[in-house]
């Protein structure tokens, strides 16, 4: 059994730094031998959460930072991303699958994270997101899979 690992960093509102942290965290998942499916889910979620924090939260303000904390063991990975922006209300983000929004080029990140993560919760007025992926999670569950039992 591998000992749990903790990783914490603070980055400027810079996409390149965001990508670098993603690679570090994915490296941890690989070290713990998570499946490709788990890695896919977490990479996608990390990209969405960190990009949202930098672009929509901090508005690319170089004076503001994004804090990223990760705890990983052989059963789950938890990542908390906190920005210094004005926050937002997740419940007010429109459903991008509705006919009136389906052709909008943005607004799908939150939906994807909810689909792929075992836990996806906003706190601190929308400035903090907590993401958890359980090892070998069956997520995402697609509609046709539900229908087929």
């Amino acid at each position, binding site marked *: 059994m591998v000992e749990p690992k903790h990783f914490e960093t603070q980055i400027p509102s810079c996409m390149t730094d965001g990508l670098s942290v993603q690679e570090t965290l994915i490296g941890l998942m690989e070290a713990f031998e998570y499946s490709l499916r788990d890695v*896919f889910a977490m990479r996608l979620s990390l990209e969405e959460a960190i*990009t949202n924090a930098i672009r929509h939260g901090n508005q690319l303000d170089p004076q503001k930072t994004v804090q990223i904390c990760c705890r990983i063991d052989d059963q789950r990975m938890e990542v908390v991303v906190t920005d210094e922006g004005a926050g937002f209300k997740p419940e007010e983000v429109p459903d991008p699958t509705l006919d009136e929004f389906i*052709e909008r080029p943005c607004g799908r990140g939150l939906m*994807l994270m909810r689909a792929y993560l075992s836990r996806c919760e906003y706190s601190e007025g929308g400035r903090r997101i907590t993401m958890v992926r359980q090892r070998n999670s069956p997520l995402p569950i697609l509609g046709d899979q539900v229908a087929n039992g």
Partner: protein
Amino acid sequence: MFAAGRRKHWSSKNVITSGARDMSKNRRIDIEEISGITVVKLLEKKILDEANIEELGKELFGLVETSGRRKLILEFSDVEYLSSAALGKLITLHKKVVAAKGKLVLCGIPKEILEVFKITQLDRILTICADLDGAIAKF
């Protein structure tokens, strides 16, 4: 990556191959012309980086707006990751092609990426085929 049968199919047509390249970056797409259809192969494994996605968008939009191409196939078999920002570019490309009275078909999408299209229900508005032959048959 291409099956032998498909390669034979490609070579039997009038195929013009070119690459789109940013001088400072890796090549993002390969472009082939098959019987009047522009087949765009996405070369990047990870379509995640925003700056990269922006450039990819410009290259794809240029095919419609500058080069006047109306029949487009996007081939995804090399793609391993795709962010929602990349999905946004595909939607905008779709709109531009439709506005130009053309057609856009996606093909060769790996299972994991296909799930992303299904979750977001973009498979409702985008035409998706399993492989290149199926995509060509849509025109």
